[in-house]
């Protein structure tokens, strides 16, 4: 479990591409620079989608964990 201070949590459990990424884009826009978004997902496509999205969008992927089919990402908003 990460000790990162989470600002906001987005739960996309059960949803599949494109919705986890569509909702992640919306959620990050609502945050301030430096805030940390926690994304919970069950779509295995996010294993690659979210790290590459972070790189492309200039955000920082602080952690990525997987337990019992639930993926949890912590993303710090940089821009």
């Amino acid at each position: 479990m990460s000790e990162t201070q989470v600002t906001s949590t987005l739960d996309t459990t059960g949803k599949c591409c494109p919705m986890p990424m569509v909702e992640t884009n919306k959620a990050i826009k609502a945050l301030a620079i430096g805030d940390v978004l926690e994304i919970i997902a069950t779509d295995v496509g996010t294993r690659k989608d979210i790290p590459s999205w972070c790189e492309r969008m200039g955000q920082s992927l602080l952690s990525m964990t997987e337990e019992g089919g639930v993926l949890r990402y912590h993303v710090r908003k940089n821009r």
Partner: protein
Amino acid sequence: MNSMAIVVRDDSYDKILTPLAFAYLTASEGTQVDMLFVNWAVKALTAEGAAALRIDGQHAAEEAMVREGVAKAGLPPEVYDIIKALKGTGCVNFYACSLAGAIFGVNEGNLIPEAEGIVGAAWFLNEKAAKADHYQYF
């Protein structure tokens, strides 16, 4: 990627989902997406035509399962509602091909308000597809 152009030809419910999903993905990142609907797919840009989209061919009997899967994935199961969601991103433009409109019965009278209008393919290919960072054809 700043811009993407998509030509949509296939009009069955299942096959039109992919270009719409790709457009939704990229538009949510702020990419400008221009979509030209040609052939039978032009009817998806009418309320009646969008509602009438079905799965055809060998997978026709599996339509209920597909629609349920679409809803579970988080997308609206109705194509018109997906179009509205895409329009809501502010980054997607829908165009009806004028030839397809003339052949398949789509005109300015029945075009959905979310569509930009009826355009010639030459304009779309030169002004949108050729200038886009990425171009797809479905």
